[in-house]
């Protein structure tokens, strides 16, 4: 063996020592890099990598909360939930998946199950997560599934709550409906997940956060192949709160039945609180079909129906108020001292203004006529004269004060404001000057004037209660599941009108005459034991051709006028105020009047006034024994 030397003896010969040192240096640089990388992963990126580790092992199962119930003012359920059955399949648990799917499809009488599984897999379904392949199973399907359970490995029957509207289409527009949350909504609602139920319309929509509650969840630890190992944490779901409405089930039923197959709307409110007692819009729809998952074709059919069953006419329908608007004229004129109760005009059946004749509905005219009789007999010429004296802007100011032409503030989406014309509005919207002749049309509630039935109901209530404009409300109380009160909804005053009581008395007297005087236009709405005050109206659908009178019955249905009736009762201590429109029914006194009468009758049967003769005892329902007073 050669003599070993760490340092080479010959110059230029590589020496072992420096080479070992070089190797050592390189080694410690590399180990330093490794240490740096570990610092990066374990210290700097610790938080997100730890989160990824948890996401690996923790699977979150959501426990949707039970949606709150809806009751009428007397705690009778209107909306609840019922079990809905669905078939779920865990593909990993089925040894022969195609055979299982084929068998299941045959039993249920549906197809396309494989596609649903593929879709779920495409969306990243983890192993051992069930796929819901069929929803809303009917009873025979449930029985078929249960009795063939053994032939269907991996298939399970699941129960989920489904919204149930006990009375079908009753108060459908007010209650609204639920549906699966849309992709657009998912972006802005972080608490919602794909497939969650959400209120889409009506109360279900505007009180979504109250009704929904909070979903709970389970954190389950799974291993790499998806086996569930243990429950790590459970957050119980919080059921939604229940809603006690202000509407009365019986009154709502009566109102809808009274309108029947005609198109129309009725709003009944408590004039002393603004609480809605009934809100009907016909034709209606059955909200249950949305809860069951409406088919696209059924949806199209509903949405394109020429009778607009999805529209809540009470807040979305805007109509010329017709002669009901004469109440506004009367208050405006008296408060403005444009006329006095004794002011008399002569009605020859029409007046000439500019170069056209403005007719009274009564061809032969009313002769000399003062305010009281003008309201009772709804003389147009009288109010043409009043309108001329007032001018459009003072009419508009009072109409606004009475809540017309602006949103009422009801907690519902899609409410429309309507229109009360004024010189300023015409200037702003059409850049046109106001013509005095137009004021005449406005004075009798035609022309551009457009209001909703709810607005007229609130106006009627305001006159009934002495001049307080309330915000209409349909929820009285929110209750927890155990019945304890979570929140109450006291009346909300939107405006005090400070109308001279004498002025109100004058107008009310006129309205009493409308119903009770022999010449009154709404004699059909008279009640035997209670004094009803009201006003009829006719909303023109097409402007009458110049100088030509067409008989209503000769017109095609869709061109016929709408009939209005507004009323409150009892006239001295009003407990209910109503506005009702029946579309294309001609004169309001004969179409809407009887509808209002039926609702009034029902109301006083349910809530007999103290100072009136009690109705026949046999008709009093059992519930009326524990009726709460209306004006709490």
């Amino acid at each position, binding site marked *: 063996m050669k003599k070993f030397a760490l340092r*080479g003896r010959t110059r230029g010969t590589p020496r072992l020592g420096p080479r070992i040192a070089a*190797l050592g240096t390189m080694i410690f640089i590399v180990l330093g890099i*490794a240490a740096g*990388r570990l610092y990066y*992963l374990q210290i700097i990126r610790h938080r997100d990598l730890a989160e990824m*580790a948890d996401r*690996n092992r923790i699977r979150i199962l959501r426990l949707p909360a039970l949606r709150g119930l809806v009751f009428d003012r007397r705690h009778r359920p209107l909306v609840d939930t019922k079990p809905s059955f669905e078939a779920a399949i865990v593909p990993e648990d089925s040894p022969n998946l195609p055979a299982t799917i084929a068998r299941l499809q045959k039993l249920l009488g549906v197809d396309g199950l494989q596609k649903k599984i593929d879709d779920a897999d495409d969306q990243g379904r983890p192993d051992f997560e069930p796929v819901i392949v069929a929803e809303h199973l009917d009873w025979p399907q449930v029985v078929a599934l249960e009795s063939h359970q053994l032939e269907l490995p991996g298939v399970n029957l699941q129960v989920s709550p489904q919204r149930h509207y006990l009375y079908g289409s009753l108060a459908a527009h007010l209650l609204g409906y639920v549906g699966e949350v849309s992709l657009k909504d998912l972006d802005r609602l972080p608490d919602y997940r794909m497939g969650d139920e959400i209120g889409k319309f009506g109360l279900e929509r505007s009180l979504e956060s109250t009704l929904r509650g909070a979903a709970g969840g389970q954190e389950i630890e799974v291993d790499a192949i998806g086996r569930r190992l243990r429950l790590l944490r459970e957050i119980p779901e919080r059921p939604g709160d229940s809603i006690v409405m202000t509407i009365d089930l019986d009154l709502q039923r009566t109102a809808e039945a009274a309108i029947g197959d005609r198109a129309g709307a009725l709003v009944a409110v408590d004039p002393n609180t603004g609480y809605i007692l009934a809100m009907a819009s016909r034709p209606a729809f059955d909200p249950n079909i949305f809860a069951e998952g409406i088919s696209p074709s059924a949806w199209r059919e509903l949405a394109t129906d020429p009778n607009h069953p999805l529209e809540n006419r009470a807040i979305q329908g805007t109509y010329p108020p017709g002669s009901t608007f004469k109440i506004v004229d009367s208050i405006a004129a008296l408060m403005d001292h444009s006329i006095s109760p004794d002011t008399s005009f002569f009605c020859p059946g029409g007046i000439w203004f500019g170069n056209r004749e403005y007719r009274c509905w009564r061809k032969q005219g009313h002769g000399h006529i003062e305010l009281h009789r003008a309201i009772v007999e709804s003389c147009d010429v009288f109010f043409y004269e009043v309108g001329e004296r007032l001018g459009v802007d003072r009419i508009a100011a009072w109409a606004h004060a009475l809540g017309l032409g602006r949103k009422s503030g009801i907690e519902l989406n899609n409410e429309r404001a309507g229109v009360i014309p004024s010189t300023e509005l015409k200037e702003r919207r059409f850049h046109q000057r106001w013509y005095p002749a137009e004021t005449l049309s406005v004075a009798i509630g035609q022309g551009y004037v457009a209001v909703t039935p709810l607005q007229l109901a609130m106006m009627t209530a305001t006159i009934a209660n002495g001049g307080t404009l309330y915000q209409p409300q349909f929820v009285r109380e929110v209750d927890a599941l155990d019945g304890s009160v979570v929140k109450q909804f006291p009346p909300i005053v939107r405006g005090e009108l400070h109308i001279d009581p004498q002025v109100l008395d004058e107008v009310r007297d006129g309205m009493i005459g409308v119903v009770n005087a022999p010449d009154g236009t709404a004699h059909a709405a008279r009640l035997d034991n209670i004094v009803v005050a009201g006003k009829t109206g006719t909303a023109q659908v097409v402007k009458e051709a110049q100088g030509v009178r067409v008989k209503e019955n000769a017109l095609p249905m869709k061109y016929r006028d709408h009939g209005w009736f507004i009323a409150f009762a009892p006239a001295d201590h009003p407990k209910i105020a109503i506005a009702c429109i029946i579309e294309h029914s001609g004169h309001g006194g004969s179409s809407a009047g009887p509808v209002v009468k039926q609702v009034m009758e029902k109301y006083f049967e349910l809530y007999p006034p103290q100072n009136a003769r009690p109705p026949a005892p046999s008709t009093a329902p059992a519930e009326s024994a524990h009726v709460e007073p209306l004006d709490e």
Partner: protein
Amino acid sequence: MPTFDRRLLYHFDWTVFSLALALCGVGVLSVVSATWGGRHHGLDPLVVRQLVWVGAGTALMIGAALIDYRVLASYAYPFYGVAVALLIVVAVAGHSTGGSRRWINLGVFNLEPSEIAKLAVVLVMVRYLREDPPKGGWGLKHLAIPALMLAVPVALVLKQPDLGTGLILILITTTLIFVGGLNWRVMAALGLAAVLAAPAAWHYMKPYQRERLVSFINPQSDPLGSGYHIIQSEIAIGSGGKWGKGFLKGTQARLNFLPEQTTDFIFAAYAEEFGYIGTMALLGLYAALIARGIWIARHSRDRFGALLAVGFTGIIFWQVAINVGMATGMLPVVGITLPLVSYGGSSLIAMMIGMGVMISVNMRRYLF
């Protein structure tokens, strides 16, 4: 064989000995953890076997230390021949698992000849390089024989296929030739050639090897395929944080998100439970062992001993660097064990013998 000198006991290198055993201890702990809560209650049979290997390895380490390393020179070529023969046996009649044929079934255990080949290649290279290099260093003509001696086992190992061991054989040979006195110009030329040969290497790679390379460069390209290993390993290491999740509390390993958690990815399983503190301690143990190996090499009385120490230190280093680099996502996935820590008898015992030889080199520097 020289007679036993009592002074040897006095000079026994307890540093290498205790560092090696400490690393074995880390290995046993990690195997316990990675197999905890599996099918077997308590200790997994894997743990028991690893303990047996540690025991046997310790005995063999002491045995190797007691042998005068200088006699190894005369056994270098026969030992190399035996190793190559075993690799041929594997190729012909090996026991295969998971698509690769790496083991010889000996009944009691499966022998992995590629681990023996590492020892043999170190020994035979050191044997060749113990001569002083000529003026200017080893030139190309001197490298023909080492190249041939390397090519045979590398070819056999790659055939299994075992890219990791092939890589280690090449790296350790390169290291030894460099330290042994390679001509600088030759070194530069070889480096350039290696860069130019990369496309050719790509051409000869197996599809799964290419896939690993691609998924290393972009792990998200196939997160459930080969990129999965890298991602899950990084998650395991990073989720350990500073202090770790605690012994037996690692979820990535215990719930099987981590692949090969007792062998190639044992570092990730360890890092998850013991955190940054733990990984620094482990790297510290390796650094201490490597530093000691380099110290032994520099203080060896002869080139043969020095290069033996460099060889075994180099194996430790390269395997640690590649294994940790792979687990932390810095290098592509190649099957290389974490020396002395990963589960596996052949690898553990080969390393322990290597450490024993290093101890022997250090013990005998006083004896001449």
